[in-house]
């Protein structure tokens, strides 16, 4: 076990070679949020093939996943992302503020730059022992609710806003009744995890809580991975239309000279092939034909958008989630 000092320069040379070797090929880095790993793993394969067929160029796509806000922060700190595919528009707005993506990024691609949508549903234990059917069942005394913390999790912000939108759409619903509703809801929350996967682990592995408020695609994945004999999905009558957005990171892709392929990468998500992969991973496709094909997979419900109820993400963030916002007020008991 003698350490040979003579090998040290070789080791360093080798490591430098490794670094430069990875820089020589055309490589895209897609920085994404937590539950999209399986989606982009499949999508990358198809896009690499498509790119080879149309341009003859060899391409490889790297992936990075984590909490949406955390990932945006990493890109801000220099993570070399060519494209970002995050959970909510607010996280890309932060990048636009620092001129990493175009100011009008939401106009660069169709449908608010969200090639697929999702919504917020409930995951309950098999047989639905508490008889949970809709949002108002969540505020009943004795119902234990699990959701991540809206301060740190993108998915949790969608959860919170969906509950708010439900309360607002009830007969005689006002901002005051909505606030009262989410206050009661969060009084029933036992554990506030920092991210969607953490909350799922609390619910599924540790067996805490009667209902988990979750991404639709995450709920389907959980049922598939952890067993349909243990959990079932309950779709409420009304929920929010979650639009996970995508954008080209202009600053990085210009420097790396990858802007063209990065744009094509996101563009292809809207193609029939891309839409089908999204649908297979339980994201709701935008393309009506593909949507019709997978119609049986997704429960029908009334969907409201963040623009119509909350006036967009900037406004929602300011009113609800910033320090001293409504979430801070209701969480103080």
């Amino acid at each position, binding site marked *: 076990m003698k350490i040979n*000092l003579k090998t*040290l320069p070789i*080791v360093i040379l080798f*490591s430098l070679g*490794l670094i430069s070797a990875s820089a020589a090929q055309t490589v895209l880095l897609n920085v994404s949020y*937590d539950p999209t790993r399986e989606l982009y793993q499949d999508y990358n394969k198809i896009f690499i093939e498509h790119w080879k067929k149309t341009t003859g160029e060899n391409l490889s796509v*790297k*992936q990075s996943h984590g909490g949406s806000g955390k990932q945006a922060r990493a890109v801000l*700190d*220099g993570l070399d992302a060519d494209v970002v595919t995050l959970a909510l528009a607010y996280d890309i707005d932060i990048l636009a503020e620092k001129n990493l993506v175009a100011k009008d990024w939401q106009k660069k691609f169709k449908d608010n730059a969200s090639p697929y949508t999702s919504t917020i549903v409930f995951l309950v234990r098999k047989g639905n022992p508490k008889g949970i059917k809709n949002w108002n069942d969540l505020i009943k005394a004795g119902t234990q609710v699990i959701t991540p913390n809206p301060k740190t999790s993108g998915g949790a912000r969608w959860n919170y806003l969906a509950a708010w939108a439900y309360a607002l759409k009830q007969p005689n619903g006002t901002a005051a009744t909505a606030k009262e509703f989410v206050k009661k809801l969060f009084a029933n929350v036992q554990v506030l995890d920092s991210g969607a996967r953490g909350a799922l682990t609390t619910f599924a592995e540790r067996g805490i809580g009667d209902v988990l408020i979750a991404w639709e695609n995450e709920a389907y994945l959980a049922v598939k991975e952890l067993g349909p004999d243990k959990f079932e999905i309950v779709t409420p009558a009304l929920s929010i239309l979650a639009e996970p957005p995508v954008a080209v990171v202009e600053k990085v892709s210009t420097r790396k000279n990858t802007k063209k392929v990065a744009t094509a990468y996101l563009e292809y998500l809207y193609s029939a092939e891309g839409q089908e992969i999204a649908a297979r991973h339980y994201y709701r496709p935008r393309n009506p034909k593909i949507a019709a094909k997978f119609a049986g997979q997704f429960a029908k419900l009334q969907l409201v958008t963040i623009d119509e109820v909350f006036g967009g993400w900037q406004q929602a963030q300011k009113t609800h989630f910033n320090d001293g916002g409504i979430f801070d007020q209701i969480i103080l008991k």
Partner: protein
Amino acid sequence: MSLTTRFERSAATSEPALIKALILCLSLSFFGVFLLLPLLSVFTEALHKGVIYYFNAITEPDTWSAMQLTLLAAAIAVPLNLIFGVAASWAITKFDFVGKHLLITLIDLPFSVSPVIAGLIFVLVFGAQGWFGSWFLDNDLQIIFAVPGIVLATIFVTFPFVARELIPLMEAQGREEEEAAAVLGANGWQTFWYVTLPNIKWGLLYGVILCNARAMGEFGAVSVVSGHIRGYTNTIPLQVEILYNEYNYVAAFAVASLLALLALLTLIAKSYVEWRLKKETNAPSAIEGTI
């Protein structure tokens, strides 16, 4: 036993058999519940779908590249810290200079700083919003969220291991042998190579083993600077977390079992080196004891 000392035979300094047994049972069951059981559960969980599944899990491409990266980071960090550690402890124990205590304190810094902070330090310094970040980016050099950042973070957290091990050892050995070598006409290099190094080799190896174990097992600091790019900037501990979060429990435990194996090998190597170290340092003290 012939080694029974006056200390052990005296009634004042020994305990009744019952208390001895009680303490022994307590510590053994504590050891079993908190150390042995979790270790065993890692291996049973890793192997419960069979050996083939286990090998498939650890040869999966992303896991494979995580292993390579971990080995690479350790292969750079350990030799550098070896050179630094020897140089620092040589300087500290064989010479007197102003700021010696400051140097010792600085060496201990990575021990007292939380690894997460250590990672954030590098983000703040080399990140795009950091002090030198824009300069590096303009010159197309990626430090954090790339291999160099992981190596830097690993070097930082494993910095003190070799020096901390050598300083007390070299201090105990004193300067007489080096002074004798100098009087006999040896130059600095010869003194180090023929006199100091043979004296400290077991201590040095001990430090290197600990340094290596930490370099391969480090999670916090590396997690902050990694960027989690699959197949590129994930080390083994990060890969374990990712697999676990993706419902891939068996694969997660399979990869974790590699780290556990590393820990066991480290322990065995460490015990052997400790035993050698004791043997060598005991030799002079045995002579002292007879006087």
